[in-house]
């Protein structure tokens, strides 16, 4: 895990080489920085701006437009809990309440120890496994209260 942005410079260079124009690397560079440093700070915006030659204001536009970029710290394990149609039809909304109770936080919040955060997500396209959620990028399907408890208990 990189501690600071300059540690990611080599990777940034490799990423830029995959695109025909520098600006196209914006989303990938933001993912890279967020994966290592946890969230997008103004410093990250400036760093991406420097590599892509995109003015900082337009980098920030991208950061605020897309759901996956966090401008504030989130938990080490960020939960995207699907709240779209198939998951709702299969009782997902009740299970989200269960998750909130289990962790003692509401959607949009992070546990005090920084371990887990909950976000209501729109369709994650694993509808055949509804109800489902993504935890730290990993999809978990066919949820039940028991399964949710198991998964949460296993998180570091």
């Amino acid at each position, binding site marked *: 895990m990189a501690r600071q942005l300059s540690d990611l410079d080599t990777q940034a260079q490799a990423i830029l080489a*995959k695109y025909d124009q520098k*600006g196209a690397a914006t*989303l990938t560079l933001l993912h890279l920085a967020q994966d290592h440093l946890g969230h997008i700070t103004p410093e990250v915006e400036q760093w991406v701006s420097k590599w892509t030659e995109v003015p900082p204001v*337009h980098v920030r536009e*991208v950061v605020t437009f897309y759901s996956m970029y966090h401008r504030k710290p989130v938990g080490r394990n960020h939960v995207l809990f699907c709240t779209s149609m198939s998951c709702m039809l299969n009782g997902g*909304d*009740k299970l989200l309440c269960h998750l909130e109770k289990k962790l003692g936080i509401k959607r949009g919040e992070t546990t005090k120890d920084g371990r887990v955060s909950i976000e209501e997500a729109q369709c994650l396209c694993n509808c055949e496994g509804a109800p489902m959620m993504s935890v730290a990028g990993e*999809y978990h399907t*066919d949820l039940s209260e028991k399964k949710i408890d198991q998964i949460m208990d296993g998180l570091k």
Partner: protein
Amino acid sequence: MSAANANYGLAPAGLEPVVSRYFNLPDAWKIETVLKLGAYETAKKALAGKPEDVLKVVMDSGLRGCGGAGFPTGKKWSFLPKDTKKPIYLVINADEGEPGTCKDRYILERDPHSLIEGIIMSCYAIKSHKCYIYIRGEYVLPAARTQAAVDEAYAKGFLGDNVFGSGYRVDITVHRGAGAYICGEETALLNSLEGKRGLPRLKPPFPAVVGLFGCPTIINNVETIASVMHIGRMGAENFVKWGGGAIGPHLYSVSGHVAKPGVYELPMGITLRDIIYTHAGGVRGGKKIKAVIPGGMSAKILRADEIDVKMDFDSLKAAGTMLGSSGVMVMDEDVCMVKALLYACRFFAHESCGQCSPCREGTGWALKIIERIYRGEGRLEDLDTLLSVAGGMEGRTICVFAEAAAWPIQSYIAKFRSEFEDYIKSGKSAGRDMAAAHAH
């Protein structure tokens, strides 16, 4: 690792699976597994022939796009300028986001080499040397698998400067999105790929003429391009005649209140009733169907008495809805349609890019109305206001997201109006599914 779902990729008995043939095969995402089974042979043959031959076979098949719009693929490719000094790009739309749709995820996660092989052939056909695969950001595992598959293909010389020693160059960059349904709209995808907000572009010009980085660009869905390889492999006629359907095999995602939710490869033109009862195990608990969404949440809903419709582009259009992304969502008799519409409106309000005024304001407005109705504070005139908002958005925006947001509003109210009126009058759902209403 997503949970193993025993129901995926089953083709009907007696039919050889096509697009889904390796969905059940462990490690099919690794090149060594599929090479033994003949992967990349079709592309090799294609690159030894003429690009026009690949074009012809795609045209002959009548293949239509599998992303939602159903535009004939050969026709789209023919829009490219015949003589251009600019590079031609192929972009794979793997921004699967339509609620109810999960089929592309299977290709990316379980059989990415079929996509790569289709890309090689398609690039050859349209004289492109560069392909970007745009995968939605939340698809972490599918993107990792696809990237690994691309790396393997490069290592074998199936990608790069000299594909199969043919002298033709094909490069692929795997690119991840960052969470925006609108990036599934092809011009929004291009803007996102260029590093900007995912705002759809004004058309004309169309991407085939002015697309990625201002260059001629073809954008196709994952399943569409994988199908290009299969058409090349089987021949257009065999592909089209598969299972006696309208244009051969098609992936249907089935979810909701069915006993066996999953991704099914079925002949296009099978009836909705067949999909639900013959293949997906019917409705759980033996309940009755109340409503079915046939083509992803944007598609207008069908009542239980309308499920004998054939699941192809033209038949569903004639029935006043659409095949779209082929995402079938089944709602049983206990579903509260007011709540269903609430969830639909929440989705569209959350995903509107906000660029043009009718959609930006209309999706937010519609959500506020349906939330108020759901909370028990509805007024009877709200239904007509909702319809007016929906109708106002249609036809007046930059892209068809507005239509997609309008159609659920229009169809749920049209087909279940008395339920909405009862709910408003009583202030609550009459004993139907009333999970905790969460204030927004």
